[in-house]
């Protein structure tokens, strides 16, 4: 089976005039199959956001190629194959919440009633149905991030690239959003998620595979399969296997840093 995302020998070097070059990604190879839920975890500055941007064709790798759906990443971007949730919510200040969610639908020329219907539905999904007419500055950071998730889901992309989407949420909301995300992922047939997080339990709970990155230069230090039974639930967190896998990820992180 050909992978839905294939990252081949990807290297990214940031060159700046005033300081030494940063090797953000060093020869990354990773294949992701359709329907997978892959978490990227690693210390701050190890290149997680950079890898996501390369996959999304928002920046060009210095070397190597990325194929999405067997196409170059640039073509996949043009075909709107993926939805992206940025590390900061990136809402437009001049748009109300519902208008922010409608933005991709406007760009993709959905008819007006359809835009409104979908935006409403997505806002309900992230529990912000009562905030349609508010503006971004009237929402907390965590609420803004949920709006950006609604916005990414609005056009029903088959691939979801998420950069620390729940970083700003409290533990309870975060767990609820985790379950919501899993429900969405399950409900859309063949949906693939690449999910960046700093939280080990979150990565283990959500993923089918956890990819551990090590910093300076950004390398793949380990890939850990998460064979916990689906669907995941509160009971999952109490399983011995859950603790065992969390420890493995933690060790991989520690090992990556010490090297």
């Amino acid at each position, binding site marked *: 089976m050909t992978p839905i995302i294939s990252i081949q020998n990807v290297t990214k070097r940031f060159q700046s005039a005033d300081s030494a070059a940063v090797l953000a990604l060093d020869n990354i190879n990773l294949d992701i199959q359709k329907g997978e839920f892959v978490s990227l975890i690693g210390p701050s500055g190890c290149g997680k956001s950079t890898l996501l*941007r390369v996959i*999304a*064709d*928002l920046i*060009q790798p210095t070397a190597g190629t990325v194929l999405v759906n067997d196409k170059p990443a*640039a073509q996949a*971007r*043009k*075909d*709107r194959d*993926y*939805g*992206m949730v*940025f590390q*900061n919510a*990136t809402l*437009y*200040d*001049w748009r109300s919440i519902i208008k922010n969610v409608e*933005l*991709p639908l*406007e*760009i*993709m020329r959905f008819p007006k009633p359809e835009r409104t219907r979908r935006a409403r539905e997505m806002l309900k999904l992230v529990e912000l149905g009562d905030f349609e007419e508010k*503006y971004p*500055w009237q929402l907390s950071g965590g609420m803004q991030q949920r709006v950006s998730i609604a916005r990414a889901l609005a056009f029903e992309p088959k691939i979801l690239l998420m950069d620390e989407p729940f970083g700003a949420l409290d533990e309870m909301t975060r767990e609820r959003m985790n379950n919501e995300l899993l429900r969405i992922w399950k409900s859309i047939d063949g949906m693939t998620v690449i999910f960046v997080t700093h939280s080990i339990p979150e990565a283990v709970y959500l993923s089918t595979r956890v990819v551990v990155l090590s910093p300076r230069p950004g390398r793949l230090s380990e890939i850990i399969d998460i064979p916990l039974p689906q669907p995941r639930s509160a009971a999952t967190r109490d399983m011995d296997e859950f603790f065992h896998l969390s420890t493995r990820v933690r060790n991989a992180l520690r090992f990556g840093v010490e090297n």
Partner: protein
Amino acid sequence: MAETLSDNNPSLAAVVRVDNPPPDRSTLKTVLTMLVLVILIALVWEGAKSFARAQEYKLNLFGSEIDLSIFNNTKLPHLGDIARAFGEPAQRNGPPLYQTLINYSLFTFSEALLGFGIGSILGFLLAIIFAHSSLLQRGLLPYVVASQTIPILAIAPMVVIWMRNIGQSSLAVPVIAAYLTFFPVTIYTLRGLTSVPQTSLELMHSYAATRWQILWKLRIPNALPHIFTAFKISATASVVGAVIGELPSGIQNGLGIALLNFTQFYNQSPPRLWAAIVAAALLGIIFFVSMSLLERLVVRWQVKESD
């Protein structure tokens, strides 16, 4: 990826430092502050005059004598006299001065407004062109900047002659006003169009948005607070342009000519010139305030954020 758009262009940032417009305070507070300020100026004005008169317009300070005659009634009339001048006719059997000044102001305002419109559209279009072509920006922006180093007094007579030649004399003054107006609009709009946060732009690219969509849905809304800063500067500049433009164009019923006439006959009645100056200042202020109000209506997100 289309990346000819120069975000946070350093060469542009070097031309003019643009900060966000200051936060709007509550209207009442603003009005009160202005009132207190006017009263303060009036107190200083009249205080200085009575002090100078008490000293017989000479002040001995550490052995050297300072001339205080600039505070006498011909050089700095009493505020009461200026106020009275508004009510008295400027010519025998003519209407009271305030009526004449209102008519002149309305005429000058119509020219300034037309010039403001022409200049804003020109400035806006230039900014959009510059934002999309760094080549044109590098080639043409220096000339735009240089155009503003030529004194308006030198440009104005030429514009009058050109417009007369093409049979559009009535447009001469608006064109002169536009000459002062387009520049801030170009610079501020360009700044607004190009100072888009990187992730906001990446979001658009992730949707494979066209340049046109990025312009309408991201760059122009992002530029609006900057554009209104420019509008506020241009509003007053267009009044200045119109007043100066009237001088060489031989217009008889505008504020510029009134200022010129009252200067010629200053010795007969100093308060009249001051009255005309007050009228010109009020015109500029009213235009400026209208732009601020419009800004509050349009750029709601920025204003609310700073409240």
